[in-house]
């Protein structure tokens, strides 16, 4: 959680987000050394749909970039999908714009690929970064609920086990 110790991160997160936490996995402490364990960050709407996910520990700068991206993308997508005269939000357009945003980020993170850049690989690519995998997941499941997203991030991207067991401390 080094990123959250950064003053700029603290200021930005407290200003723009409402924060909470949840334990979904465990790890072991053997001879004072931490074995296993991980962290994942999600930026969600109030209804639980996931705007963005950051799997694993990242630096403060990286985290700040991702937090800003989530905030700015939400603002842009909400504006574009809102009928300004009536104030109603087109949910289908909202979802489609979020998909396009993640598709664009996936192509940027995964590097040059063969084929159409408007299409996604059928399966989650294994040779790209965890962040690119998260973008692939959110592009294939735009605006899915966090209960649908987090098990995939935790087990498929971070390769961790979902567990509610307490931390085991062994000598």
């Amino acid at each position, binding site marked *: *959680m080094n990123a*959250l*110790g950064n*003053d700029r*991160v*603290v200021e930005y*997160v*407290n200003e*723009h*987000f*409402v*924060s*909470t*936490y*949840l*334990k*979904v*996995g*465990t*790890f072991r*402490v053997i001879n004072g050394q931490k074995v*296993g*364990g*991980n*962290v*994942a*960050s*999600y*930026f*969600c*709407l*109030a*209804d*639980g749909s996931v*705007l963005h996910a950051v799997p694993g520990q990242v630096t403060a700068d990286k985290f700040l970039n991702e*937090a800003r991206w*989530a*905030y700015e993308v*939400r603002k842009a997508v909400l504006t574009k999908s809102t009928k300004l005269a009536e104030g109603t939000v087109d949910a289908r357009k909202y979802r489609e714009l979020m998909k396009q945003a993640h598709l664009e980020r996936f192509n940027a993170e995964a590097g040059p690929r063969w084929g159409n850049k408007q299409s996604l690989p059928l399966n989650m690519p294994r040779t790209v970064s965890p962040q690119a995998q998260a973008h692939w997941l959110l592009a294939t499941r735009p605006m899915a609920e*966090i209960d649908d997203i*987090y098990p995939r*991030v*935790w087990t498929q991207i971070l390769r*961790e086990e979902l567990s509610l067991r*307490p*931390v085991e401390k062994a000598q």
Partner: protein
Amino acid sequence: MSYSESSARKPIPTGILVTKASKPAPPDKKLVPRRKDGDERSLPWLYIAVGGSVAWVVAIMTIALVAHSQPTEPAFGPVLANNGVPANPAQPEAFVPPEIDEFQKEPAPRKRGEGAPKLVRHLPPREDAPPELVVFPEDARPAAPAPKQALKKDVDRKAFADCEQIGTNVLFHKDPPAAFQRGREEKKIVFVVHLSGNFEDKEFT
């Protein structure tokens, strides 16, 4: 004239008329004369190879025996004769080589991962070389560490995690549904951290 009328005529032969092929010429009866065993041009290569090999072995063994039977003399000793008495009393004493020859001493074996020694080229100083940098004592001192973030103490511990315990000033709601409720009211994005271990225990985070 109809088609049926024409078919009543004499049928057209379908075979192809060709002339009778002439008989192939008989093969030439002349045979290439075979070389006889006693021919002068045939060489006994087998005997030559075996004989040559034996000759090489004999020659090499002869050289080895001759070299082995030569008397060995000390490299730097005086020429001795008559039961070890020096032939020339004025001859200087024999040179005794040192026990450890510095020049022949083997270099210490390099440790694993240690690179080869660098070759230093002693070049004359360039005239247009920039002057050496002067390091001022105040610059040589290590930079002062960044001031540590002062953690908040006046947070509502019923609603938020203790900043001192989690090591950050980000206000984390203890209750996720309450955070989503507040996000709905304030129209804010909800930032959710999923983690292993106990968030409120530094050792188990």
